């Protein structure tokens, strides 16, 4: 109750049409959780991106960069291969199964047209993994090392705010936020129970033998 009162007080202080939502994600122990996808779906309904710009998920040093990518439904994604070896990017996730067979350099773009989490893998490097969280809203963010994310320029209105992390044991309860004025700032805190991801064996790099 006190939190709601506080939230109401904060929201009331924001200017209408340019509201900001500050979200802090912590784990069960209270430690900040980085790479959590946070997004706010307007009460008016989900929205696909129109003429969205291409997002890149690179392969550098036999790793996907970044580990977590959040993007709006309908966003095309390129998987440029910066390594001097071939990669074979694939996804068996129902949200977007695809594969880009062995290639190097630029890749064809893949449009993620369904919301959901897509797990990326490389068929020849089992340890390579990355996640694309496809959300039906333009208001999304990814927590930094401090577990904080800031969603800017949110039009005033009601939102359902969610947080997701690939290591989560269970999905965090969605929260609602109502932004009265464009200048209103709202703060939300999520607690996600995460597990420690086991790093899969990555053979050491032998440049001479690439």
């Amino acid at each position: 109750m006190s939190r709601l009162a506080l939230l109401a007080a904060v929201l009331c202080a924001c200017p209408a049409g340019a509201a900001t939502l500050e979200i802090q994600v912590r784990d069960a122990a209270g430690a900040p959780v980085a790479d959590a996808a946070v997004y706010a779906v307007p009460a008016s309904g989900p929205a696909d991106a129109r003429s969205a710009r291409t997002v890149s998920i690179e392969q550098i040093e036999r790793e996907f960069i970044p580990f977590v990518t959040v993007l709006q439904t309908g966003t095309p994604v390129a998987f440029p291969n910066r390594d001097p070896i071939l990669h074979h990017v694939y996804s068996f996730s129902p949200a977007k199964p695809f594969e880009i067979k062995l290639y190097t350099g630029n890749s064809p773009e893949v449009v993620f047209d369904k919301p959901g989490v897509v797990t990326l893998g490389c068929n020849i490097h089992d340890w390579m993994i990355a996640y694309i969280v496809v959300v039906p809203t333009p208001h999304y963010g990814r927590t930094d090392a401090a577990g904080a994310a800031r969603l800017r320029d949110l039009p005033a209105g009601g939102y359902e705010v969610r947080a997701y992390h690939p290591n989560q044991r269970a999905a965090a309860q969605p929260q609602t936020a109502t932004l009265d004025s464009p200048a209103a700032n709202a703060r939300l805190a999520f607690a996600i129970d995460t597990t420690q991801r086991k790093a899969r064996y990555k053979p050491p790099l032998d440049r001479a033998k690439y």
Partner: protein
Amino acid sequence: MEAATPADPPRGRRLRSLGARLVIFFVILLVLVQGLGAFLVIRANSQIARQTIDQELGQGERVFRQLLTQRQARLEQAAAILSADFAFRQAIATNNTGTIISVLRNHGARVGATVMTLVDLDRAVRADTRDEGLTGKPFVFPALVEQSASTGKASSTVLIDGHVQQLVVVPVLAPDPIAYVALGFEIDDGVARELNQLTGLEVSFMSRMRGTGWQIHSSTLAASLRGELIEAFAAPVAEPGGFRILELGGEDYESRTAPLAIDGGAEIVALLQKSLEVGLAPFRRISTSFFWLTLAGLALLVAGSLVIARSITRPVSKLAEAARRVKEGDYKRHVDVDQHDEIGELAVSFNHMLDGIESREREILRLAYEDGLTGLPNRAMFNTQLDQAIRTARRGGTQLSVLLFDMDRFKAINDTLGHPVGDQALREVGTRVRRVLRDSDIVARLGGDEFAVLLATGGSSSAPRVVADKILKGLEAPFVVDGQQMDIAASIGISTFPEHGADAPALLRAADVAMYDAKRSKVGYTVYDPTHDERRQEFLTLLGELRRAVESEELVLHYQPKMSLADDRVTAVEALVRWAHPTRGFIPPAEFIPFAEQTGYISAITRWVLGKAIDQCGRWHREGLNVRMCVNVSARDLRQEDTLVQYTWAALLAAEVPPGMLCLEVTESGLMEDPKSAQSTLRKLRDLGIETSIDDYGTGYSSLAYIKQLAVNELKIDRAFVSGMEADKRNAAIVRSTIELGHNLGLTVVAEGVETEHELAQLRHFGCDIAQGFHLGRPMSAEALEAWLAAARGRALGSRASALRSE
């Protein structure tokens, strides 16, 4: 000897049994030791065998588990590779069940899996190669999925549809897990055989559901044994260490159960087995060798024991044989045992013993048949020789003689000069006699001073007399022993075979009789005369009768008055013994007293007489008749000094007779036989107050010096002088001088044998103190004497009156 034989156990059997005992003992010993050895070896062998097999089984189990783990790892790897196959993942991602099943079958076949199941992340079966109906149902091994989710792989041995399977569960990664795939690899006979080849053990995989029996899924055992295995295995026998022996097809198998999995209701084990027969085979060979070794040892032992036993028993039986010969008196043959062991020592000792026994027996014989003093044969030897000689003489019809002799008065030599001197003298006698005899004659000392000579004359009957003469001559020369010179005379009795006796005792007795004759007649030697023997018989009879006479009061005492010539009063009586023989009538003392003295029986008679006389004296004394009682004692009585004195004294006390009322008379010749003891006895008697008198004085050639020393009160002149006074003046002179002599020595003089008035008158004239004789009064009984005394008193008065008248 014959009688003893049946009591002895048969020698052969006893010795054999010694050998047999040896053999049996050693055989039993060997069998015991070897049996124990065999028992221990076999037990140790079987223990070692079992231990070895157990070790092998233990090792086999480790190898087996290692192999299973390796196989599992291989299967996991295969599964991991399979699950990572892109096409496989792509097919699964299609979410088309038909596709999924076909890809499962396809890829499962690649790695040889018999069962493949795809499990959703929510642990529900997505697809199964066996049964589509399982789709959507929960996966039956969720634990494996959990383990696989956390570690990337999981495997276990499980029972699926009655087959033992190694089930591997791996995630399907894209690259996060999108599903789990389970691959089942059946453990069939092939797998068991493979394990058997690597471990050398029989391998059986078995399972049972809770509440059901065991079931064999695969095994290296022949199909025929599997039924037995289930039966044997089902028996609830728990053995420590997880090992147990199962019998299959008649063979023992050491078995070890390796539990593989308990999942839900199913228990799966691997049974590892090794045949004990195979494991024990090397030990069986050792046991067999041991058995043959024992058998060979036994044979050698029996042979060896027999040899040893024989080497003991043979010399032992020789010794036993020798001992039997000893028993029969043969000491000559030594035991011939040529061994240098204990038996040999025994034989040597045995032979020494033989020598010892022989020499000792010789010594014993010598002692038994030889007289120790003279070295001559003894009586036993003499008797033997005599027997032998008699036999020879009887066969040859020849004669032989026995000369028996002893020394006259030898006792005096012993008594006065001592036994050592006597012994020396006897030795000298032996030597001298031996010297006068031929070598073929035998002289023996029969005992004491008695010697015997055996003459195997075969010739004239005068030969023994010649020899007797020679012997007497030989003894004539004085004997000098310890500087003492002495004369020794012998009396020889001669008897001759066959006329004087048919055997040794008869001959010896005859010679004995002859010897006594010789002694009596003092003629040196006498040849046996059968008439002498008759007298001797009479003599012996008389002795018996005399003995009886004393006991049965046939003897009686008569008393002869002794009259004092001073006043013509009877002052004393002499007690004289008479023998009222029941058949022969009255026997005068002269006929039995010398004989009693000769035989020593006189002591008994003296004692009887003393007792009677003192008793009578006492009676008279009490009646007021005071006459002294004179009793004769013999020289022999004087020698038994103490006996005589004590007895006399006791009798006096008993009869309450004053000692002075008793007078003991001893003949002069009796005194001279043993002057020393006579003197001592007389003194003792006189000291007691008893009167003593020398009887028959004048016959014993005693010297006055001697008489002077004697403690006597009275001298009795021998009757020969008294009764010869009228005929020969010289006798009267002797009587007269004797009376004077007696008076000079302070002795009372008695004349006995007074038979005439003339003699009496002469005696009065000579001053004789007391007279005794028929003229004055005959010996008479006590009653007669009493009467006589009463009459005499009257007569005395009368005579005195008439004397007065005549004067």
